[in-house]
């Protein structure tokens, strides 16, 4: 049963994408969109139950373990939320001419093809398939980033495809090196690229070649994950993409790349000892947190702000994996989930505000609370959570990452981390407060708030608040088992 689900799961979004090509009606397209995402979500839950009760399952090049499951659940939840959000967002975007009604089918088909490649990424056991799927996410999402078709969108799309393709060329090179090291112990053939097979011989692998391989992979998939200094594509792509796509990029895609790095981290930790990959994580994590800060403070474009903020949070996840140990790793995995959910919520809320004011400039978006009280409240909630205010979920995971660092006495890293988090806290709340309060501009649309974006946002906000107040036993168990996969 669970084995069948492994290959059915990537087929669901693929089939949904093909189904999109059969009609041009916006309502039917939206219905297929929500339906396909709901099926993906339901099947993911079934698979999660199977894995929770009877352990990891494998079928050919695909395999699901608790680590992959954390990311798969994130993909499924956010895809569903994005589909619900898109219903109302699209109606407005078509009405004002931001999206042309004639090309909607290709937009929806691409979104689901993008989701399909991400599902393969998190389910792949074979490191070669992981790479192929990762490049697949680049190709599908690059078209989506440039979807509006204007000059800025295409510029962002070009920068995105070039930077991440060079990046993951490095990832492929690293994969080849690790494969070479593993082939010396496990024979050639497709099996020698399987992560679970390599893990069995990992302690025997030559540390020298694994070390170089891991650095190539870190730089390569790190570019895709938005780790500084390879993050240059990220703010452009996040600001230029249609809002639902921005939410997918920031919420899920960069997390999938992190999963890729974690897979190699476990191999490197077994071959060269855990200290080496941890150091590499820490270097890139600290760089990301530091580099993102000034750009967050000086930003006027709300979607670029959220983009740079993703760089910071990917940095925090990297710090969590770098501090390591059960606490740091658990914190990093929880942060992956928390940031994914919260950042998607923030992009949704920002997207509705942008639609209302017709601009991304935060100096123009004022007094949102007066024209869209529910949306503004959700935007404030998301901003408070992103800034790390208790009792929201990000506060909990940041605290866990910090405790992981204290446990391993990384005092310098902790000091830098804390200073940056405090500075960003102030900067982010300043920006969000200015948007929510004050006198609304005369140009702002005063239409009533559409139900579907609100529903999607409330769904995400509920998860965000719940994970902040208490971590349910099932989620806790999943994260603990996933931590064991990483830490061993």
């Amino acid at each position: 049963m669970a084995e069948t689900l492994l290959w059915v799961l990537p087929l669901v979004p693929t089939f949904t994408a093909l189904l999109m090509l059969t009609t041009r009606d916006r309502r039917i397209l939206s219905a297929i969109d929500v339906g396909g995402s709901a099926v993906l979500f339901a099947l993911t839950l079934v698979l999660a139950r199977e894995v929770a009760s009877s352990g990891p399952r494998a079928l050919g090049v695909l395999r699901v373990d608790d680590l992959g499951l954390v990311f798969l659940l994130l993909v499924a939840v956010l895809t569903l939320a994005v589909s619900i959000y898109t219903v109302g967002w699209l109606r407005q975007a078509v009405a004002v001419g931001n999206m042309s009604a004639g090309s909607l089918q290709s937009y929806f088909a691409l979104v689901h093809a993008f989701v399909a490649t991400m599902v393969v990424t998190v389910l792949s056991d074979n490191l070669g398939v992981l790479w192929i799927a990762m490049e697949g996410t680049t190709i599908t999402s690059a078209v989506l980033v440039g979807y509006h078709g204007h000059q800025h969108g295409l510029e962002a799309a070009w920068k995105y495809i070039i930077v991440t393709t060079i990046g993951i060329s490095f990832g492929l090179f690293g994969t080849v090196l690790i494969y070479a090291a593993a082939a010396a112990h496990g024979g050639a053939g497709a099996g020698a690229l399987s992560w679970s097979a390599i893990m069995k011989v990992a302690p025997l692998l030559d540390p020298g070649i694994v070390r170089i391989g891991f650095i190539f992979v870190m730089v390569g998939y790190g570019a895709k994950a938005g780790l500084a200094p390879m993050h240059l594509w990220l703010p452009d792509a996040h600001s230029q993409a249609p809002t639902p796509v921005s939410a997918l990029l920031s919420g899920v895609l960069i997390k999938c790349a992190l999963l890729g790095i974690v897979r190699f981290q476990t191999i490197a930790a077994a071959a060269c000892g855990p200290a080496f990959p941890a150091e590499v994580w820490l270097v890139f994590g600290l760089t990301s947190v530091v580099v993102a800060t000034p750009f967050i403070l000086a930003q006027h474009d709300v979607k670029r702000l959220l983009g740079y903020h993703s760089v910071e949070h990917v940095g925090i996840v990297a710090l969590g994996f770098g501090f390591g140990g059960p606490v740091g790793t658990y914190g990093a995995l929880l942060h992956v989930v928390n940031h994914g959910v919260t950042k998607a919520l923030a992009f949704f809320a920002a997207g509705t505000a942008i639609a209302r004011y017709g601009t991304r400039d935060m100096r123009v978006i004022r007094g949102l609370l007066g024209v869209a009280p529910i949306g503004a409240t959700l935007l404030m909630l998301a901003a408070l959570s992103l800034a790390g205010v208790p009792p929201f979920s990000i506060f909990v995971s940041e605290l866990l990452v910090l405790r992981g660092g204290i446990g391993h006495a990384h005092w310098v890293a902790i000091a830098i981390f804390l200073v940056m988090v405090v500075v960003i806290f102030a900067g982010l709340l300043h920006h969000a407060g200015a948007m929510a309060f004050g006198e609304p501009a005369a140009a702002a649309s005063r239409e009533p708030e559409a139900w579907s974006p609100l529903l999607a946002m409330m769904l995400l906000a509920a998860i965000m608040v719940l994970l902040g107040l208490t971590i349910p036993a099932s989620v806790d168990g999943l994260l603990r088992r996933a931590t064991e996969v990483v830490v061993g």
Partner: protein
Amino acid sequence: MSTHTLHAIVDDLGALLLFTMILILAAGQIYRAIYAVAAQSLLIAIAGAVLAKATGNVDLWVIAGITLVVKAIVLPWVLHWVVRRMNVRREVEPVIPVAATLALAVAVVVMSFHLSATLGPVHQAITGNALPVGIALTLLGVLAMATGKTALTQMVGLFASENGIFFTAMAVTQGMPLIIEIGVILDVILAALVMAIMVLRVRSTVDADIADLDRLRG
């Protein structure tokens, strides 16, 4: 074929590959860079065929054939088509002078040989000097992307970089598993098509090279 002859042939091919890379880096016109990358792909295909003959690995024959068709013929043809459609014959404008690029390239090659020399025990499993050449090609491809100012030079650099990875994979492990190599080539073709469409789209709307656009900042 004895191991000695095999090593000699792979080393010679490696030297020729580095030579084509220098041609790409020093190309004054985009056409020359495209021909050079086509020649480079042809050499990779030959290397695959030589290794296939020496090891009797059937997968390598397939990989060599696909490389020949896709990377030595189809992709250069796509690039050529884009250049014709863009109707530009202008010089490749380097960001830094060609002499400086070549000096950097020499440094990269020396560094690659040094790096793989530190990998003592693994070196045994690897055919001749293929590993340093592979690392050098991959990094020089990235250098070509970084110094080339136009979208097409960036694409040429990307393909050259991919060639380096393929050469490494062939020499180090007799190629990655066939199914993976096919998947990788498929991705490269799709990426090339998407890039070509973007280049032409920008050309037709704002009459500029997509790589020259620099409005997004801060």
